C-alpha cells in the first residue's frame, strides 16, 4: 500500500447522497480477477450512456476537475455491496482522499486498506464545500499528519478527526497482514485456549 501524507489538488464535487457501490463500480466489471485497471469503469453508467457516449453533465466528465485527487461526496457514501472493487476503481481513477459527512462501514474500512483516506466532516462543512466547489473549482491541501484541510482560496483551515491506528497505517503505508503476524503467539494461544 502506498503511504499518504499530504495531498494538494482540486476537488471533484459529487453532489449526491447515498451513493452505493453498485453505482461506483457496476457488476459487469466484477468478473475480473485482477486488482488494478478498474478506474476506467468508475461510475460507468453515470459517465457514459448506453451507446458508450460521454455524458457531459456528469461531474467526472467536467474538464475543470480533470486530474483531481480529492472526491467530495455527500452522506452515506459507499453504501450497499461490500465489493472492494469500488475503492480499487476510485484509487485507480486517481483519487486518494474522499470528503463526506458519513460513509457506509464496509466501504470506509476498504478505503484504508487501499491507501485512500476517507475523511468525515460535519454536514454543514460539506454543504459549504459542495456549494462553493460546484461554482468554482476549489483547491485543498489535505495534511494527514496535522489532520487539517487548508482551503487555498480563503486560507481557512478545517480540522478533521481520524482514529490513530488508521492514521498510522496510512502515513506509513503499512501492510496490515505483516503487522498482525507480530501477534502470532497471541493468536496461537487463543486457539489453544479455545481447543481446550
Amino acid at each position: 500500500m502506498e503511504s499518504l501524507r499530504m495531498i494538494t489538488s482540486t476537488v471533484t464535487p459529487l453532489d449526491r447522497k447515498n451513493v452505493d457501490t453498485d453505482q461506483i463500480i457496476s457488476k459487469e466489471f466484477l468478473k475480473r480477477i485482477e486488482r488494478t485497471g478498474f478506474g476506467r469503469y468508475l461510475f460507468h453508467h453515470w459517465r457514459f450512456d448506453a451507446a458508450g457516449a460521454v455524458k457531459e453533465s456528469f461531474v467526472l466528465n467536467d474538464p475543470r476537475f480533470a486530474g483531481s485527487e480529492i472526491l467530495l461526496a455527500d452522506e452515506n457514501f459507499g453504501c450497499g455491496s461490500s465489493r472492494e472493487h469500488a475503492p480499487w476503481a476510485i484509487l485507480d481513477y486517481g483519487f486518494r482522499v474522499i470528503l463526506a459527512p458519513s460513509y457506509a462501514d464496509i466501504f470506509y474500512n476498504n478505503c484504508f486498506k487501499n491507501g485512500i483516506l476517507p475523511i468525515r466532516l460535519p454536514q454543514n462543512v460539506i454543504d459549504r464545500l459542495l456549494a462553493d466547489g460546484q461554482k468554482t473549482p476549489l483547491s485543498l491541501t489535505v495534511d494527514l499528519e496535522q489532520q487539517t484541510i487548508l482551503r487555498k482560496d480563503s486560507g481557512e483551515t478545517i480540522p478533521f478527526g481520524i482514529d490513530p491506528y488508521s492514521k498510522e497505517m496510512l502515513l506509513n503505508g503499512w501492510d496490515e497482514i505483516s503487522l498482525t503476524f507480530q501477534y502470532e503467539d497471541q493468536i496461537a494461544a487463543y486457539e489453544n485456549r479455545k481447543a481446550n
Partner: protein
Amino acid sequence: MAKTIIEKIWDQHIVVKEEGKPDLLYIDLHLLHEVTSPQAFEGLRLAGRRVRRPELCYATMDHNVPTRNVTKIADPTAEKQMSALERNCREFGIELAHMTHPDQGIVHIIGPELGLTQPGRTIVCGDSHTSTHGAFGAIAFGIGTSEVEHVLSTQTLWQHRPKTMNIQITGTLQPGVTAKDIILAVIAEFGIDAGTGHIVEFTGEAIRSLSMEERMTVCNMSIEAGAKAGLISPDETTVAYLKGRRNAPSDEAFDEAAARWLALASDEGAVYDKTLSIDASSIEPHVTWGTNPAMGTGVSGRVPFLSEIVSPSDREAVKKAIDYMGLEEGMPIQDIEIQHVFIGSCTNARLSDLRAAAGVIAGRHVHPSVTAIVVPGSRSVKRLAEEEGLDTVFKEAGFEWRESGCSMCLAMNDDVVPAGERCASTSNRNFEGRQGAGARTHLVSPAMAAAAAIEGRFTDCRKVPALQE
C-alpha cells in the same frame, strides 16, 4: 453487569486488546465465493503466505452461476473467475461446493443449511449480506477483499468495537404480513443509514415468533439499514433448527452446545447505545417505489408527491428516483404494472419463501405480459421443493423453474431485466441498474411477488385467496 449478546460474543473473541488500536478479533467461520476472493488468494500467493485454518473456511459458487444449465458458462470472464476459485480452493485446501455439487447454493443460504452457522460464532464473508447469519445469534458481517486476505492468512481481523442498537418489533404481525415486510418497514421508517457503526439486535414479540428462515430474512437486510451486522438472540427455535445439521454437534455435545447457545441471549436489563421501536401490527405488505430500500411504502400507499418533501436535497433525490423508475408522483402503488417477477436471492429463496409464493400461485396463471422466474437459493432448497411438488405448481402457472444461484438479484449472469422494464423482486437492493442497466426494481415479499405475477401489477397478496393447498 447485564450484557447484550453482542458484547458477550465480541469479548469472547478478542485476541489482542491494546490502547489506541482496534481489537484483534478471532474469526470462527470464513465463507467465500468466486467474486470477492480471487485477488485475496493472489495476494497470498505473491507474498508466499498460506491459509492459516483452511478447515474454518468454506467456499461456494453463486454470483455468476448460470441458472439454466450449470454445465455451461457462456461468459469467458465468468468462467475464468470460477476456475480461479476452484484452483485456489484446491491449492489452499479449502472445501468447495462447486456449481455442480449437491450442497451448492447462495453462500448465505448454505451456511445455515449445513449447520456451519452457529450461535456465538464470529462469521465473515466478502459479501455484505453476511449479516444473514446473525439470525442464529452470531456476529456475522461482510468484509472487503483485503480483509478476506487478512482472515485467510491470520484467521483474525482488526475491528473497532461497534456500538450496539436494539430494534424492537413489538406486537403481532397481521396475517399475510411477513418478515420481509418487517425489515422493509424498518428501513423505510428509520432510513438506510440508521444502523451505521452499530451491530443491531432485533428483539420483541414479533421477532420471537418468527421461524429461523424468517429471522434470516430480517437479519439479511440489516445491511440495508446500514448496520455492520444484525442478530437475534438464540432461543428454542434456533436450537431446534440446528439439531441434526451436518456440521452441528451431535448427541451429548449438542445438548452442551445448546445450553451454551441459550446462555448467550442478551441479559435482562442489558443496555444498548440506541433503541428504536416499531409496532408489528401497523405493518402492511410493503413495496419499494424508489432506488434505495428506504424508498417504499405499504401496498395501499402511493408514491410521494414532491411537494410533501421538506428538505430540498431529499426532494431532489426522490425526483431522480421517480424519474429513473418511470413513475408519476402521487401514483398509487397498485397502479404500477410490472413485466418481470423474480423469486430468489439470499433474502427470500428458502423453502418457506417458495411455499408462500406457491400458495398464492397455485391454480392460477402468470399474467400474459409478465415473465416470471423462480431461482431456489440452494440445490438443497430446490430438491426439497421438488419433493413437495412446488416446481409443478410454479411451472403449471407459467413460471420458469431454475437452478440455484444469485441470478437476477444482481444480474451478473444472463438473468437480466431489460432497460426500462419493471421487476417485482424478492431480493434486497433496488439500486439503479442492479438487475440490469436501466432496469427498475421493486422489492417485495414472495407472496407479494407471486400476487403481482398473476395480476401484472402490484396487488395486496392478502386479497388473493388460496385456491388449493
